[in-house]
């Protein structure tokens, strides 16, 4: 068990170190997210008519597109100089490779959220002060599920050479339950003042569990040098 954890940590650190040295993905993704927020802000007009549910919708659009871009980028790293072949030769379980990629992607997404959320709060005047922890918890739980599916599909389409729109097309429809459930949970927390919980949260947690297990099982079959 400790060896597995060490292997996961090593693989994650490798990805994060590459990212820390180049800072290619995070800067790209953060700028894309900010642009999306800006477009939505300009489109919705200066009056700030967006309510609580609208806030999550705007943030989700930015998270979804930013997330897909970062999944693509972290997988593209492995195709340079046949890194994937070396990774597959390493004496680790394929599931460990999956977990390493997933945690790296999650770190990127959290960094993205840390940039975009304040920007959106600032530009749209969202009021998250009623339950900031509930907001953060819902978003983190949702992102785990989103990154679980995204990492799986990024690996599946990695060697097809036409990832761009394709990955988004695969990940978005599958992730819709996350968008619906997190939005409804946050509406009930912010508008109705209810405590965090209920069916919505259960759907989010179930989504994470189902797709973490499925991806772990399926990942074995899809990696190719």
């Amino acid at each position, binding site marked *: 068990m400790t060896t597995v954890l060490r292997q996961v940590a090593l693989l994650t650190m490798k990805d994060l170190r590459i990212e820390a040295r180049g800072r290619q993905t995070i800067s790209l993704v953060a700028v894309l997210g900010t642009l999306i927020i800006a477009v939505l802000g300009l489109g919705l007009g200066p009056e700030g008519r967006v309510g609580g549910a609208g806030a999550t919708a705007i943030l989700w659009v930015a998270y979804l597109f930013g997330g897909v871009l970062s999944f693509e980028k972290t997988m593209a790293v492995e195709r340079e100089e046949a890194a994937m072949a070396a990774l597959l030769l390493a004496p680790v379980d394929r599931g460990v490779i999956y977990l390493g990629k997933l945690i790296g992607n999650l770190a990127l997404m959290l960094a993205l959220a840390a940039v975009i959320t304040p920007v959106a709060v600032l530009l749209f005047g969202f009021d998250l002060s009623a339950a900031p922890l509930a907001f953060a918890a819902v978003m983190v739980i949702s992102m785990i599920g989103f990154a679980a*599916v995204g990492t*799986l*599909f990024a690996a*599946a*389409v990695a*060697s*097809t050479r*036409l990832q761009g729109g*394709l990955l988004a*097309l*695969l990940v978005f*429809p*599958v992730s*819709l*339950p*996350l968008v*619906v*459930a997190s939005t*409804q*949970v946050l509406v009930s927390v912010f508008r109705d003042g209810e405590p965090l919980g209920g*069916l*919505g949260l*259960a*759907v989010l947690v*179930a*989504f994470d569990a*189902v*797709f973490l297990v*499925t991806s772990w099982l*399926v990942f074995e*079959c*899809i990696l190719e040098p």
Partner: protein
Amino acid sequence: MLEISRKASAAYWMAALAALAGAVAMLIYYTPVEETMGPIQKVFYLHLPAAINTLLAGAAVFAGSVGYLWRRDLRWDDLAAAAADAAVILGLVVLLTGMVWAHSAWGVWWTWSPRLTFTFMLWLLYVVYVLIRPSIESADRRALVSAVYGIVAFLDVPLVYLSAYLMPQDIHPTSINMVGSMKLTLAAWFVPVGLISAGLVVARYRARRRARTQETVGCRRPACA
């Protein structure tokens, strides 16, 4: 051999059409007009069987996808793709009949009520399956990506269902007070819809098999995706 199978398939479609004609006759002459909804209520006899067959087609996509990952035989991939075609067509029937109903009962073509949201998200899942296939060139890679997506999509269905139920205000009838003759007609409609759905899957499967054989012989047709 080919002659026999052609005759068998002709007989099958004749039987399916006869069942459809019988079901339509029952719908027109046998069932009473529902009091509040009027004759529009009769789309329900097509609506419910089509909805159930959509889910069955999704299950067939799942079975084909698991079969492909397990056996790595392109016949499983052809089965999954054929079932996905059927799922998209059936889902469209469900959506259209549902919209006709909604317009007549509630005066709007669309509301974001739970069942409509669920059907729409389910349909999108399989539309994406059908759409992405032609954009992956290698047959093996296409089968692999499709199989992973087919599995994830089917596991997503219960989550989509649960999350859709978080949407507010359900005006969709969960049960209709049906007299005996209505129940009988509904049961009768399952026969042609089931026959046509199964026939559709088999027809699409055989078309794909034929295209695949021609592909290996050397006749390159772009339509084999």
